[in-house]
């Protein structure tokens, strides 16, 4: 009745290479980096004694959000030194997510595994490094693998579980969470866009008005993706903060 065929996965996730292996996703990632840097460089040019306006207002509100919404909630006052790291992580992920809903770009750069995996690997090195720096290698391993307050015999069971969950599963789930959320949103948008296109161009004239239904769904989901893009960046950063906080200040 209607010519509806889902394109191969590479057609919706991969564009033709611009040069070498440089494609649209690399372009979006580089643009995200440059936009984030530009905002903060422009903001730093302003006179800090007067009331903030324009770009500086934006920059200060993001710093405030990270300080009060992420660091203070998870690490407390002495974690405030981590604000720059978490802020740049948040901005980069958010600016990579947002192109998923910008018309004509329509591709979240984090919907390919490479970017989330690299970010998760970086976070893995940072929180393990921070833990080793603060407690020494032995002390860190002891606090991770041998949590206090457990009967001695249970360590046979607890230690392998803790090792798997803290060292192996954490970066994996961090990467997969961001990647799969953005990919799922992208595929959902593609599905509804294809469905409404197929209905609008159907040979049966009677089907054409029904195209408005998937189209409304498409608009609604685009609005939903605005929320998801922010929420995933927030969750990534808040989990990073929790991991760093746990590595630096172990429970006693």
């Amino acid at each position: 009745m209607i010519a509806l065929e889902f394109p191969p996965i590479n057609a919706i996730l991969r564009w033709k290479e611009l040069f070498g292996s440089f494609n649209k996703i690399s372009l979006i990632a580089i643009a995200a980096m440059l936009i984030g840097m530009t905002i903060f460089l422009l903001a730093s040019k302003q006179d800090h004694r007067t009331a903030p306006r324009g770009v500086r207002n934006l920059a200060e509100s993001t710093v405030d959000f990270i300080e009060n919404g992420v660091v203070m909630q998870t690490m407390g006052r002495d974690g405030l030194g981590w604000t720059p790291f978490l802020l740049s992580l948040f901005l980069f992920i958010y600016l990579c997510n947002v192109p998923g809903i910008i018309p004509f770009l329509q591709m979240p750069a984090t919907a390919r595994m490479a970017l989330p995996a690299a970010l998760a690997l970086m976070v893995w090195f940072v929180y393990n490094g921070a833990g080793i720096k603060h407690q020494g290698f032995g002390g860190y391993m002891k606090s991770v693998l041998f949590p206090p307050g457990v009967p001695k015999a249970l360590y046979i069971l607890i230690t392998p579980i803790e090792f798997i969950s803290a060292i192996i599963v954490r970066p994996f789930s961090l990467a997969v969470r961001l990647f799969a959320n953005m990919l799922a949103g992208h595929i959902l948008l593609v599905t509804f866009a294809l469905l409404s296109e197929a209905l609008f161009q159907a040979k049966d004239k009677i089907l054409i008005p029904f195209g408005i239904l998937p189209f409304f769904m498409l608009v609604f989901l685009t609005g939903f993706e605005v929320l998801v893009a922010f929420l995933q960046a927030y969750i990534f950063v808040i989990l990073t903060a929790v991991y760093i906080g746990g590595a630096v200040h172990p429970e006693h």
Partner: protein
Amino acid sequence: MEALAKIVAKAAEAAVDPADAKNTAAAGSAGYAYGLATLGPGLGIGFLVGKSVEAMARQPEAAGMVRTTMFLGIAFTEALALIGFVVFILLKFA
């Protein structure tokens, strides 16, 4: 589970070529993989958010802290559903 295996086997029988049969079976089971993966996390997130709203309504001054913890809990619960989604993608396309 037996019914599920039967459906997949029937789908595979319909295709003659072995490679084709494998693809058909994978495509058939991909939907079930994702469908089953949503059940637990769906219940879990519903329960989690419901309890958080209850806590926020009882003690509005602790809303900020409850919200942060709620998002953390959602992130951990949701991971299972997302791994199910990744399995779906792998079965369907890889």
